[in-house]
């Protein structure tokens, strides 16, 4: 029974994807999440399913980390499904959207229960590619461009991951995650895995796909992208590179540096945005910096790793639900205009993300800080500053929403609203079931400081250009930056002109190559020369080489 439930997590969304063209298909997305939700709540830890005949041998199973991942991911997918069903007809209530949604769901929930590298990779790939359809869904030129960029990064990431998996399988002699716990990965593998999963986690520099994708995709899609799917990168690191290996200590330090850069890179860029979705996107990059920092710490200090990992998973769950709810709330605003109670709900979410007392954010942050080892004092400072920047980001988000020109208020679909409110209630209640009071009251200082700063920022908005203020730079500094940017643009243009002159030479060579190797097309245009002699001499040349090679026998 339990084993069947694990299998259904994969199979049901896939099967339902095949049916999603039918008339009764509206509710399929909700049904498809259920096995994962039920499994997360009822299936005992340690359940495994082994299918040795499938692919190169598939192993599914549920462990402690997987269970929490499964729980928050399935809750978010459920909320997003309900939200999507409530959307107006014809837009995202379409077969195409449902198919991609279900495929991405199968991949995301499936990879969580995967216990071998290949099934994880299968889920990861399915999720990544199906999300392309979600991003491209609006079919505008902008969406297509964003989707293309997303796809290029995703495929590059998957290829890097694939190479890492093959090398790891060679080194460990098998595909199961169990074997990886006793394998020392080579530096190349670690690098490949950091980059491969880093693309999904939008590490600074590898994040270029994220902002535009979040800006164009339909709200429920962005909710699962930013909440559930992005976390697959974290799970990947946990599964493929379990802390405890001495070889990872050095890399842990590297990852901590990357994480710190990510935190501030995301925060600063987020503050510069005018569009709420872009702001939230960069906030995700910043929060993923926190997770990266945590993984780095777990690698660098193996003794603290178990506590750190559970803290990180809680943090991931908190971020997933809150960020998903924020995007769904934005979706409500975009559809029906800002209502006071939506603004209040978003305000609550913003407080939770900023780690205000009595919210899930406070719980997650206090768990993370207490699980850090004593050597990591400096990290505490970093996390404190990070919390401060989050407060500023959230203040700006609420401010931006408040500033938005009032839209004609359209009626809200009951179901979407209901989904959102349920998610809100869940976020509000969960911390009280889990934590003791001291954890819930941490983080008040950063919040207070942040709120004061935010108030000052809003106060001063008349006097300084908005961007300069948010960035904390003078207008002069901005002018300098702009001039430097201008110079780079000029330089690139000059290079383009150069390459155009080079291009004409290249074209001549290319054309002659083309004529030589494609006589078919060229004969059809009836002007080319005969290329048989060339092909013939190539052919005979290969023969001569082959004969020579055969005679080289020792």
């Amino acid at each position, binding site marked *: 029974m339990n084993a069947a439930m694990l299998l259904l997590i994969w199979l049901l969304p896939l099967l339902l994807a095949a049916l999603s063209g039918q008339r009764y298909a509206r509710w399929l997305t909700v049904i498809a999440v259920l096995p994962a939700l039920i499994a997360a709540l009822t299936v005992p830890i340690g359940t495994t399913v082994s299918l040795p005949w499938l692919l190169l041998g598939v192993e599914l199973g549920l462990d402690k980390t997987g269970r929490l991942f499964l729980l928050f991911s399935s809750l978010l997918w459920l909320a997003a499904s309900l939200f999507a069903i409530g959307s107006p007809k014809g837009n995202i209530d379409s077969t195409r959207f449902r198919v991609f949604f279900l495929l991405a769901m199968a991949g995301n929930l499936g990879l969580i229960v995967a216990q071998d590298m290949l099934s994880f990779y299968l889920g990861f790939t399915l999720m990544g590619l199906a999300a392309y359809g979600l991003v491209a869904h609006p079919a505008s030129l902008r969406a297509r461009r964003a989707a293309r960029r997303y796809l290029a990064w995703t495929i590059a990431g998957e290829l890097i991951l694939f190479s890492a998996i093959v090398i790891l399988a060679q080194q460990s002699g098998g595909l199961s995650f169990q074997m990886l716990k006793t394998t020392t990965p080579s530096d190349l593998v670690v690098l490949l895995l950091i980059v491969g999963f880093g693309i999904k986690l939008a590490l600074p520099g590898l994040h270029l796909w994220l902002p535009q994708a979040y800006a164009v995709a339909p709200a429920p899609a962005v909710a699962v992208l930013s909440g559930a799917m992005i976390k697959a990168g974290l799970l990947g690191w946990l599964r493929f590179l379990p802390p405890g290996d001495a070889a990872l200590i050095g890399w842990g330090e590297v990852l901590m540096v990357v994480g710190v850069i990510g935190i501030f890179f995301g925060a600063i860029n987020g503050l510069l945005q005018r569009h709420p979705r872009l702001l939230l996107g960069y906030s995700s990059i910043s929060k993923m910096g926190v997770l990266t920092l945590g993984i780095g710490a777990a690698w660098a200090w193996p003794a603290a790793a178990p506590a750190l990992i559970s803290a990180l998973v809680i943090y991931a769950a908190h971020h997933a639900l809150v960020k998903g709810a924020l995007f769904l709330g934005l979706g409500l605003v975009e559809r029906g205009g800002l209502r006071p109670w939506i603004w209040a709900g978003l305000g609550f979410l913003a407080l939770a993300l900023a780690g205000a007392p009595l919210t899930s954010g406070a719980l997650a942050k206090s768990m993370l800080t207490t699980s850090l080892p004593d050597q990591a004092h400096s990290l505490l400072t970093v996390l404190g500053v990070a919390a401060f920047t989050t407060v500023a980001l959230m203040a700006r988000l609420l401010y931006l929403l408040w500033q938005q020109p009032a839209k004609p208020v359209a009626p809200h679909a009951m179901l979407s609203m209901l989904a959102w409110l349920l998610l809100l209630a869940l976020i509000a209640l969960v911390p009280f079931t889990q934590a003791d009071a001291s954890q819930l009251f941490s983080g008040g200082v950063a919040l207070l400081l942040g709120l004061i700063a935010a108030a000052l920022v809003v106060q001063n908005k008349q006097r300084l250009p908005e961007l300069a203020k948010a960035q904390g730079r003078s207008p002069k500094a901005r002018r300098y930056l702009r001039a430097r940017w201008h110079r780079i643009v000029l330089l690139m243009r000059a290079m383009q002109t150069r390459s155009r002159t080079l291009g004409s030479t290249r074209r001549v060579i290319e054309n002659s190559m083309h004529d030589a190797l494609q006589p078919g097309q060229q004969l059809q245009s009836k002007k080319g020369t005969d290329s*048989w002699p060339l092909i013939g001499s190539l052919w005979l040349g290969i023969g001569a080489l082959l004969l020579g090679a055969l005679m080289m026998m020792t």
Partner: protein
Amino acid sequence: MLTTQWLYALSGCLLLALGLRSALLHPALLQRILAINVMGSGVFMLLIAIAYRGPGMPPDPIPHALVLTGIVVAVSATALALALARRLTREQPHD
């Protein structure tokens, strides 16, 4: 008698080389088809030379069977090539 066998074999090789050269270098379609036929004849000569087993001995039947089958194949291939070529030139008289 050895010389006869070598005569056949060498002229077979010569025909083969000549045919190959024409097939690759001559742009005209008909010439190319004929060149491949010449190549075929070269191979058949070679096979006949191989069949020779010495004075007074009956020749090896297997290469002979190969030649016979080969001829049938060559004839049908040539017929197909000519049919296609005719279709091509009928549509495009200047080609």
